[in-house]
């Protein structure tokens, strides 16, 4: 297991090098060069040259990249063009917010998606199955940000039971933290719920016809244990894969949700940085996002070995 982990971590290194190179290289594509973002609205050639010198843009490109990357490895992602704040601390500041949102969303997706998928799979063709299938199809097609708006309309404006927008840190008040996040998390969860429910239904229906399920039944196992142990572990691989894909997509979706709900997370920071052409910030966010997604993919891959011991053996 440890050796496998080590090997997988090693294969991430070249990918990370290429990805970081592309992230840095993206900035070279800025029309007129990144210095235009810093030099003000009507820059003189002298002013531009000065900014170029400050940013180290007169160095050969590879040297520039190496300076940036080696600093990044040591935790220095540079300074914001906009307010001079350290990129690293800005991202670290927003991270707990985004993480809270993503985890809450995945939790909702797990509970509702698994529940819906299982209910459908255990009674194929029943009204539960048909209802779950229709719900999944509809959820798949609802724009999450619009669902967020509608939830605000109903629960915050009409019923006044939930706050409309804003964020309260967990440490300050767990209840308020939850109440502020539940609306955006629920809206973000609708597509993952549908995807997870579909995958769960398909996987569980398949596993239920396997011979070893009949063996477990012949042992006298009761349904809860039969499904909870023997069926779920075998049905897990496609479901966990779906979770990985959805987690990846969620990171993108937080950009919109945090903007709509005024949540001070990395998503809102991304939006602000793109709008203000804050290139060091954009680079830093892209790099951190890529690393996070690599780790999510790694976790999903490693879980396969747990759910299917045969994979580990090969």
């Amino acid at each position, binding site marked *: 297991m440890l050796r496998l982990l080590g090997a997988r971590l090693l294969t991430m290194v070249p990918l990370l090098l290429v990805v970081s190179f592309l992230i840095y290289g993206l900035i070279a594509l800025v*029309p007129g060069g990144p210095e235009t973002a810093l030099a003000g609205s009507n820059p003189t050639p002298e002013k531009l040259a000065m900014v170029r010198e400050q940013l180290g843009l007169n160095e050969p490109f590879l040297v520039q990249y190496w300076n940036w990357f080696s600093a990044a490895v040591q935790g220095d992602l540079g300074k914001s063009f906009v307010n001079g704040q350290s990129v690293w601390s800005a991202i670290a500041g927003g991270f707990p917010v985004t993480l809270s949102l993503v985890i809450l969303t995945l939790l909702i997706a797990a509970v509702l998606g698994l529940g819906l998928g299982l209910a459908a799979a255990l009674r194929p063709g029943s009204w539960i199955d048909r209802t779950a299938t229709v719900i999944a*199809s509809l959820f*798949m097609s609802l*724009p999450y940000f*619009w669902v967020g708006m509608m939830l605000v*309309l109903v629960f915050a404006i009409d019923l006044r039971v939930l706050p409309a927008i804003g964020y309260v840190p967990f440490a300050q008040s767990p209840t308020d933290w939850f109440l502020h996040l539940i609306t955006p998390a629920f809206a973000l969860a609708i597509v993952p719920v549908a995807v997870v429910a579909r995958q769960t239904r398909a996987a569980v229906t398949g596993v239920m016809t396997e011979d070893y399920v009949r063996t477990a039944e012949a042992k006298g196992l009761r349904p809860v244990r039969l499904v909870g142990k023997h069926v779920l572990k075998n049905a897990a691989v496609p479901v966990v894969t779906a979770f990985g894909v959805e987690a990846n997509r969620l990171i993108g979706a937080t950009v919109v949700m945090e903007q709509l709900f005024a949540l001070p997370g990395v998503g809102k920071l991304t939006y602000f940085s*793109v709008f203000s052409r804050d290139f060091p910030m954009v680079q830093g966010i892209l790099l951190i*996002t890529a690393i996070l997604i690599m780790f999510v993919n790694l976790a999903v891959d490693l879980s396969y070995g747990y759910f299917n011991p045969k994979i580990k053996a090969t």
Partner: protein
Amino acid sequence: MTQNQGLHSTEPPIMTAGTMPRPKKPEEPAVRRRRAGRFGQLARRFAGNKPALAGGVLLFVILVVTMGAPLFAPYTPEQINIADRLSGPTPAHWLGTDALGRDTLSRLLFGGQVSLAASALSVAIATLIGLPLGILAGYVGRGPDWLLNRASDILMTFPALVLTIAIIAVVGPGLTTAMISLGIVYSARLFRVIRSATLVVRQEVYIEASISIGTPGRTILLRRILPNVLPPLLIQISFLLASALLAEVTISLLGLGALPPTASWGSMLGQAFAEIRGTPSLAVFPGIAIALATLSFNLVGDGLRDSFGRATRKAEG
């Protein structure tokens, strides 16, 4: 530990193992061969699938009313009428008006043109890149395959939305650039599907046979590979259109895509959230339009997938 025991049975010829009354998955060939009337058969199966048919009809209606917006819309999308601003549904404005008194129904119809055309643009670009490269990688294999796979790995290391808005940060906002970037990002997804579908065909014996007889590469491509790559391509295109529509809406909602005064479903939603307390209808109707269009793409995609059958689903994975 040897595993070969038990793989073959030792039954006498007339007697086979006991029947089990449990349903088993039917076995189908990995690749469907082209048959006469195959597409006719397909169309019948698609039409027999009620949700798919409903999706097709819905899509057709949406296309007709948006493309025919100049005929159907009661006002022009930019017609400002401050006196009637922020009204809910009235006989004059069926779906109400926005902060500048512009008619929501008219803006929805014209905005649909913009949103749907934008998603079609990005999917077209994804197809132009993903289809040939997918066939190339799947058919040639070796070096090109390795290289293209790594490239798609890298593109897939970022969430599509994050990568697209990062590109916007560099080249500047605007719907066309946004959709071109999105198309490039989506091409990685299409590439994978096409590559694995090509790989399946390539491994089929009859392709090997055609190579040995010396059939020109173009014939193999047109007669053998394209027909087998088409089903997963069409399915992916339907689902990608749904994703691209959502992405257009997202990007325009954030103010990075369609810029004022152009109406798109996304920019309408973006302006609507500010007014949601007073005029909720502004947010409700564009959302319903987006949901219906997405639903129609998804239903058509599901229907195609079911009509093409299991074999395609395998190729997709």
